[in-house]
């Protein structure tokens, strides 16, 4: 584990892993979306609108997965002080927010024809909207901390505390009466027919690879920023 904390070794690894993840993810996602949007048959009740599933569900999982990554990285940063862990948390925030927004927008578009409404304030929808706000707050906080040169400990604590929302989102449809249906996929079981499940799982893998690629690319960009700034500062101090 400490081996990867070395920024130089990370750079070597990330320089070939980033394009690999992005290309594989794009190919898998495009294939899964083509499969889901054009090849599977309509649902018995929802008809054609079931196809939103293949965008909505992977986006929802990655929206929650993004914050889980922030929380784990924050924990690693707080305990082991790995500087790369703080960068990983910062890098996961923007793609996490984007996937959360995709989930909210596709869910709203899906809700109109199936439920008869764009939006309701039930447990699931509200907790997912809270997640989007948490992401926005985290991004602002982490950027402010980096700009002001404040310790990354403050955003890390926020990342850990915000993780309490993840199990709440997951359990919201079980604990409370909600308009959103209960989970279709639970430990070892799926209420989604195999015809839909296969492209869905491919889409989840593809989206996850894209997510990983974006995180690595953003980590490299943040590292480059830090190195450029350090070099400028060194040069400035030498000039004086």
């Amino acid at each position, binding site marked *: 584990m400490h081996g990867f904390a070395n920024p130089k070794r990370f750079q070597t690894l990330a320089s070939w892993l980033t394009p690999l993840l992005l290309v594989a993810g794009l190919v898998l996602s495009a294939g899964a979306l083509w499969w889901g949007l054009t090849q*599977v*048959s*309509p*649902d*018995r*009740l*929802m*008809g054609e609108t*079931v196809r939103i*599933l293949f965008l909505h569900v992977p986006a929802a999982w990655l929206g929650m997965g993004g914050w889980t990554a922030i929380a784990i990285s924050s*924990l690693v940063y*707080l*305990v*082991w002080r790995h500087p790369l862990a703080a960068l990983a948390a910062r890098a996961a925030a923007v793609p996490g927010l984007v996937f959360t927004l995709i989930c909210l927008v596709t869910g709203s578009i899906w809700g109109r*024809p*199936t*439920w*008869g*409404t764009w939006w*309701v*304030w*039930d*447990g699931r929808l509200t907790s997912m909207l809270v997640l989007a706000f948490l992401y926005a707050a985290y991004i602002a906080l982490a950027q402010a901390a980096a700009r002001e040169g404040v310790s990354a400990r403050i955003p890390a604590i926020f990342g*850990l*505390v915000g993780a*309490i929302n993840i*199990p*709440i989102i997951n*359990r*919201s449809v079980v*604990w*409370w*009466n*909600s*308009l959103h*249906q*209960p*989970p*279709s996929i639970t*430990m*070892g*079981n*799926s*209420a*989604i*027919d*195999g*015809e*839909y*499940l296969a492209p869905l799982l491919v889409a989840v893998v593809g989206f996850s690879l894209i997510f990983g690629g974006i995180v690595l690319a953003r980590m490299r960009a943040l590292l480059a920023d830090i190195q450029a700034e350090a070099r400028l500062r060194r040069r400035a101090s030498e000039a004086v």
Partner: protein
Amino acid sequence: MSALKPKHQRLILVVLALVALVGAGLLAAYALRNQANYFYLPEQMQADPPAVGQAVRLGGMVEQGSLTTDNDGVTLRFAVTGNDGSRIPVRFSGIAPDLFVEGSGVVAEGRLGPDGTFVADNLLAKHDENYVPKELEGMSEMQAAKMAEETTVGIE
């Protein structure tokens, strides 16, 4: 006793903080268990009826065989059932969503009338967690159960 390494001190501190945080979250969720419900089930509404005329939501399953349309063509009457067999009759005038059918879930927004009938201003369809292609719909229950078994993925 040797002093703990700072790394381990931090680990213990963070774990304690997380335990406290999860505990607080669970307590908050427990306290919210009734307030955060989006609708009342029929049994909840019967056990603790809202004031007549108070805006509330009623949710449950549309009872099989209960759906009728009045002579005016736009007024629907049906019964919503809960988990324990309790039922509340509902009246609604307007356009129901496409997924509103007997045996399916519904959330009715409206108010409880003095005669115990729920008068809905709006209906929302609540669908279940099953996603099944159209071709499988006509299958017998046994076939469907077999199919469901086959499509159940084991993640062990």
